[in-house]
């Protein structure tokens, strides 16, 4: 447990309001100018079961859900016992330590006791003074938790008013209840010792799916087609809710096949459109993905991974779809795969993906995972300026127009239906420069070869513009930890832990998954050990790296449905290093 950060966890059953309580707490910290990172542990159940929500906050960057626990808000007995038990079994979450406080209703009795500081608050009693709504208890608990840290109550009051604002009186009931909780705790129990600095910085608290939606909107998105599937639903819901504001048409289709074919139709017609799903829905989209590559229609697909295989663990995270996305659809065709490492990058890469897709007239898949899509982070003010690049476009009535003209860079000028004099056919069958099919009356092996090379040349062109692969504390690193996508935060924090122990560990962070930047080989060469960290069973990126580069690697995987915890990860890395 660190002095300069705080971790609060709210535990209860599905339907108990765990997540909304967590979000109120998160917002109090972000409004206090602090960095926030949240974690949502929930089940595929609508009511009941056990879920919890964790908020980590600090004046310095917090890049993962973190280790440790300071304040537990236990909304039921099960939650209390589960999180105070040193043998907690939740994928790596820390139990409440001795110094931690456990806020719970005073009426709670008969629970199994562990060595922590129990701080009962008459949550129900206080709540009842204001309303019969049992959820008001949560607000009292939130107040108590804020009291334990002596956060500025006015900020909490503001957050509550914004949250319950539309409900007038209800907002004030909540504020009052929170205040009582705050005061009760402050008067009765000791303040938790922390050295937290508030500030006046504007921090934007945003979830992954929201950042992707916002990024897409700033990137000129006008249509989104989807079919609900956790964890791809968050972008869908966000865009649906902001449809009018952002001018984005959002449609739930009859299935994922329709969604992707619609997105292709819209892009073909000249309108930026996206689709998205999780692995199972993405399976159904793969046929059309290859078509987009063949007809050279721009397309961005948001692929939000969850723990598989098959239906798997619908509310759990994993990076298990890489092989699927790489291999998606029959035959070879050009495509780009991006895996943003954090929420800010997700915002940027989503609109960048729209540009790449249109400039190269090919599919771009944005791979996120449940962890990235659903957790909240604070980011600084997003840059709203963005240049939309429509790529090569044909002139109206251009003479001798060839939709698929063979060219140096593999890219040919698009014509949009409605443009005069450029009528042509876009075909999923193999075709020549004009779009005429070369597989009907006479197959032409030569033209076929040229067309194949024309399309694949785009990959070479694109390879030249891949940004350098970022590194972390790598300059003098003897050991390199390679990660991709959302595990960035946990890996960097694990590296920090090891650095403090004096180990020369650095990181290589891959966010351009396909094609891979050739600089990776150089950046890894000459190191004592290369350790690939992945949130999946088989080490899918590892396989990819080895197929591309002559490197020897070791592998750390996690496939229990939860994301990495820095401390535990640092120990695994240390073990790999040790086994020299």
């Amino acid at each position, binding site marked *: 447990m660190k002095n300069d950060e705080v971790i609060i966890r709210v535990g209860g059953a599905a339907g108990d309001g765990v997540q909304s309580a967590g979000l109120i707490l998160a917002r109090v910290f*972000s*409004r206090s100018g602090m960095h926030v990172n949240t974690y949502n542990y929930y089940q595929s159940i609508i009511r009941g079961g056990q879920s919890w929500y964790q908020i980590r906050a600090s004046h310095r960057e917090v890049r993962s859900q973190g280790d440790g626990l300071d304040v537990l808000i236990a909304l039921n007995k099960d939650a209390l016992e589960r999180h105070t038990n040193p043998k907690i079994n939740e994928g790596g979450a820390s139990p409440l330590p001795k110094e931690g406080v456990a806020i719970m209703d005073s009426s709670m009795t008969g629970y199994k006791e562990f060595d922590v500081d129990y701080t009962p608050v008459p949550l129900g009693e206080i709540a009842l003074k204001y309303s019969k709504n049992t959820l008001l208890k949560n607000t009292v608990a939130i107040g108590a938790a804020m009291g334990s840290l002596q956060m500025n109550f006015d900020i909490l009051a503001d957050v509550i008013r914004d949250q319950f604002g539309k409900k007038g009186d209800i907002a004030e009931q909540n504020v009052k209840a929170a205040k009582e909780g705050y005061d009760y705790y402050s008067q009765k129990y000791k303040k938790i010792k922390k050295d937290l600095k508030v500030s006046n910085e*504007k*921090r*934007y*608290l945003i979830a992954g799916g*929201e950042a992707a939606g916002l990024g897409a*909107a*700033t990137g*000129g*998105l*006008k*249509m989104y087609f989807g079919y609900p599937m956790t964890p791809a639903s968050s972008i869908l819901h966000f865009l649906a809710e902001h449809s*009018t504001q*952002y*001018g984005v*048409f959002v449609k739930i*289709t*009859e299935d994922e*096949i*329709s*969604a992707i*074919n*619609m*997105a*292709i*139709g*819209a892009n*073909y*017609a*000249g*309108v930026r*459109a996206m689709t998205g799903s999780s692995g199972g829905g993405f399976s159904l989209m793969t*046929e*059309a993905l290859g*078509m987009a590559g063949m*007809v050279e229609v721009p397309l961005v697909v948001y692929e939000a991974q969850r723990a598989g295989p098959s239906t798997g663990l619908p509310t759990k995270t994993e990076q298990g779809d890489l092989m699927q996305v790489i291999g998606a659809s029959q035959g070879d065709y050009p495509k780009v795969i991006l895996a943003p490492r954090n929420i800010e990058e997700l915002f940027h890469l989503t609109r960048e993906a729209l540009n790449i897709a249109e400039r190269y007239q090919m599919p771009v898949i944005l791979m996120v995972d449940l962890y990235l899509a659903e957790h909240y982070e604070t980011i600084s*003010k*997003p840059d*709203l300026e963005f240049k*939309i690049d429509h790529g090569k476009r044909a002139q109206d009535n251009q003479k001798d127009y060839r939709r698929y003209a063979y060219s140096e860079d593999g890219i040919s000028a698009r*014509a*949009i*239906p*409605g*443009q*005069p*004099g*450029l*009528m*042509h*056919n*876009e*075909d*999923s*069958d193999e075709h020549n420069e004009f779009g*005429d*099919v070369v597989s*009907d*009356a006479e197959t032409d092996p030569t033209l076929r070869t040229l067309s194949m090379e024309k399309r694949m040349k785009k990959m070479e062109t694109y390879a030249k513009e891949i940004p350098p692969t970022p590194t972390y504390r790598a300059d003098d690193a003897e050991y390199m930890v390679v990660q991709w996508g959302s595990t960035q935060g946990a890996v960097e924090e694990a590296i920090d832990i090891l650095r403090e122990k004096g180990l020369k560990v650095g990181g290589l962070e891959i966010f351009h998954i396909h094609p891979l930047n050739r600089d990776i080989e150089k950046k890894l060469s000459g190191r004592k050990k290369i350790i690939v960290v992945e949130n999946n069973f088989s080490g899918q990126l590892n396989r990819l790296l080895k197929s591309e580069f002559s490197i020897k690697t070791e592998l750390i995987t996690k496939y229990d449905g939860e994301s990495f915890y820095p401390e535990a990860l640092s120990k695994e890395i240390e073990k790999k290093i040790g086994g020299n």
Partner: protein
Amino acid sequence: MVTIADYKGKVKPDWCPGCGNFAQLSAISMVLANMGIEPKDAVIASGIGCSSNMPEFINTYGFHGLHGRLIPVASAIKWANPKLTVIGYGGDGDGFFEGTQHFYHAAKRNIDITYIVSDNQVFGLTTGQASPTAAMGMKTKSTPNGNIEKPLNPLDFALAAGATFVARAFSGDAKHLQEMIKLGIQHKGFSFIDVFSPCVTYNKNNSYDYFRSRVYKLENNDKSDLLGAYKLAQELGDKIPIGVLYQKDEKTYEDYDPIIANTSLVEREPVKITEEHLAEFL
């Protein structure tokens, strides 16, 4: 003035001589030209099958996509750019097997596209298996002992799905076929036209003669009578009606959705996201 010559594609159709699809190619070209629609403003989206090769042979914008998936492509094109005349053209395998689901839901949504099916009761391009409209007992490569599946009734299906224009035509009657296609395109909403289109190579049962001796033209039927239309759809024996079975004025999906109603997304600038939009994250 637009003429049929403007619609002539540079690739010669490679259907078998006598194939029903030739009639639809001419009819569509003729109707578009006669309606004064410029080739640049027409899009034909198709699936995969002999019929679906159509966009290769006509001088419009063409999208020759995937087997069974022309409907979502066509729908989104229309939503993106309402100024276009969007025609979906495909086979009975394409639309009534692989694409059943899309057909149903697009009809229900009443999207303003015209969907023409070249209904030849077989899979042509894959060399003659029984299609969903193949008659019971029909012997094909996939049903060497005779088809044992009840044929799907496309008109009945379209009516049940909520299509607001439901018609049948026959490749052997070019003028009537044109008429149907014209009415279909003119209709605002989802128009479905099932065309008896003989496959001279793989379907010896459902020949031109077979249909010619059976079809009769609907005249003065009450097009607004849904139950009447259902009844007509059942006539598949010695007398088979061709013509418009049903037509209804109804709001389209596009009319309901505020983002696309009266807007051409392809022309409209993206909404500029400003700081105000960001306030909710603070």
